[in-house]
């Protein structure tokens, strides 16, 4: 395996869950609902997928259950957002807390207390590289693209996110359309969660989603609410992320010290305990890049006009 393939595989591994999650969220946001609770869905579905695989032994069923978990969370979210008209951002934040608690507790009570470790079967690798879920993400992009832009229901969905009143006048049920979008959102985040625990690894670890749900949110915005945009943005994110290890590995540190020496900064940097390049700055890179994209792109594009606004009929 060469460095290039290393970067490539690293990119794909990071991109896949982000892409699924952001695709689902794109659909939800296009319908006018913002779901900040993605992080929680990722965690919950990673857990149920792992748990199912542990007991049944078939990781595909695990992915299915992960999806259903996502849908269940989305429906609960929908109850708050669409029926009660509660604030969507707050509901999402609390859902994250809830998922963190429930997975941590269940993990503890089902495994840790019995000294069992949750190591499971894993989705098989295709050609020793990636699992089925990664290549399937591409048709998923196409599917969402096709859905949003080439089907009647996609058109209706986007109308609900832009101008619910117009959708209503055209005889479309705004609440039902948004609920469907949320269910899709949950299912996609569910797949992504399952990817973390039964495709990209063979275990569940509390808090293993490590912020991917939040990044997916940013990707939706950076990708301009467009599935292709999501693909590009998540690839970019995955790439900077994979690059950080390669840069660490490729002796970026040496380059850093070399440059420091050229500018006679070595002693100063030593005094500052900066002999080595602080690798955390690499880790911050993807977020900085996302910020830059947001900064550069948001003038030319807009969020769906009704995003986050409850629609009440009359």
């Amino acid at each position, binding site marked *: 395996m060469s460095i290039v393939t290393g970067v490539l595989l690293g990119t794909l591994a990071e991109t896949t869950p982000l892409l699924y999650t952001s695709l689902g969220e794109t659909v939800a946001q296009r319908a006018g609902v*913002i779901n*900040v609770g993605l992080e929680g869905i990722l965690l919950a579905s990673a857990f149920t997928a792992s748990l199912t695989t542990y007991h049944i032994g078939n990781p595909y069923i695990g992915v299915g259950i992960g999806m259903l978990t996502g849908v269940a969370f989305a429906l609960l979210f929908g109850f*708050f957002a669409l029926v*009660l*008209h*509660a*604030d969507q*951002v*707050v*509901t999402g*934040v*609390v*859902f*994250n*807390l*809830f998922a*963190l*608690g*429930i*997975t*941590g*507790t269940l993990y*503890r*009570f089902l495994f840790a207390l019995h000294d069992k470790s949750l190591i499971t079967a894993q989705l098989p690798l295709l050609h020793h590289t990636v699992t089925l879920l990664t290549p399937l993400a591409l048709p998923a992009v196409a599917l969402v693209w096709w859905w949003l832009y080439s089907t009647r229901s996609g058109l209706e969905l986007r109308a609900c996110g832009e101008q619910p009143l117009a959708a209503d006048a055209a005889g479309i049920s705004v609440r039902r359309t948004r609920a469907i979008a949320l269910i899709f959102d949950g299912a996609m985040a569910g797949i992504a969660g399952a990817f973390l625990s039964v495709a990209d690894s063979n275990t569940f670890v*509390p808090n293993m989603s490590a*912020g991917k749900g*939040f990044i997916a*949110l*940013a990707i939706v*915005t950076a990708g301009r609410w467009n599935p292709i945009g999501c693909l590009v943005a998540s690839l970019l994110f995955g790439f900077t992320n994979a690059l950080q290890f390669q840069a660490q590995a490729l002796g970026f540190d040496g380059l850093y010290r070399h440059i420091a020496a050229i500018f006679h900064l070595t002693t100063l940097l030593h005094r*500052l*305990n*900066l002999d080595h390049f*602080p690798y*955390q*700055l690499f*880790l*911050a890179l993807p*977020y*900085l890049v*996302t*910020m830059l994209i*947001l*900064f550069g792109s*948001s*003038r030319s594009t*807009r*969020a769906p006009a009704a995003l986050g606004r409850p629609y*009440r009929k009359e």
Partner: protein
Amino acid sequence: MSFSKSFPTKPKAIYHLLRFLSIAFLYIIGFLILLVATFAIFGVAPSKALFALQQGAFGGGSISPAYALSETLVRATPLLLTGLSIVVAWQAGMFSIGGDGQLLMGALTATVLAQLQQVVNPNLLILLMLVCGTLVGGLWGAIAGWLRVKRNVQEVISTIMLNYIALYLVGAAVVGPLQESSHSNPESNLLPDKLLFAHILPPSWSGGVTTRLHSGVFLAFLAVPIVWLYLYRTLPGFHLRLVGQNPDAARATGVLVDRIRVRAMAFSGALCGLAGVVQLLGTSERLSANFSPGWGYTAIPVALVGGLHPIGTLLSALFFGALEAGSVNAEQTLQVPASLIAIVQAAAVLAIIGVNAWRQHYPTELKD
């Protein structure tokens, strides 16, 4: 005159008080049921769990009330400051999630300044840390505000990104220039005693044990009236709320909406920056890569349960502080995992926002 004026309002006040109490009572009963149910589901004896919670939050058994109450206060402190920060931002219609990042930037700034401990008078330095940490936190918030008004970047997204960037900046600092002397852990040196907030409770009050109750707690409590005054008693606060409630109407009365939004984010960030410094000098005593256990995120439910009002947020922060103190005790004595407490918190908050939203959407009250 004043008598006749107050006379007819008196029964009303009692009526409102009773109504408030009955609603609060309902919430408390509901919360307790949730708590008991959750513990029961996971096989923890509810009576023991409730006792452990109460013991941790208010004292009892081997824990003196003074100690427990001081824990409750100390834990409420960062939640109060960050909760107030959410109140300010959200009242201005800015749905910031950036508390954690702003808090970290405040703590980072203070730790940088602490390097001057040899050259600057400690009390002056503490003041400097508080001021600069607050300012930098405010700056971090203002960035999100500025991005919103100038580039229409949604603050929900940009604050999350800024949180991560702050997190990694702190991470880089504590393995770099700010790392402790042995260069072994991702944390700074402990700050010297002279830079820390004084412990204010005499040990004799708490069974001979020093509590963590520190003078920084006052700052948090002081922030409540300040925020309250600002929001409800000053012109900028009036405009801030107006912008949050209806930016179009604000614009129509000549308010500079963009400026108010940036200012609100700066104020909001400043409160979090202050929280960072207060935690650093009050309890954490050093900067570390894991400085915040998520105070800035918990702040959102805290502020929301507090009705996005400073006084409500005070009560709510105390409630969350007590819950945390109690649950840490339950965790240590009964080995209830901390995650169980997260479920209880989330469920309680969901119940509250659900009930609130429902009452708003389907108003049933009749005016008399």
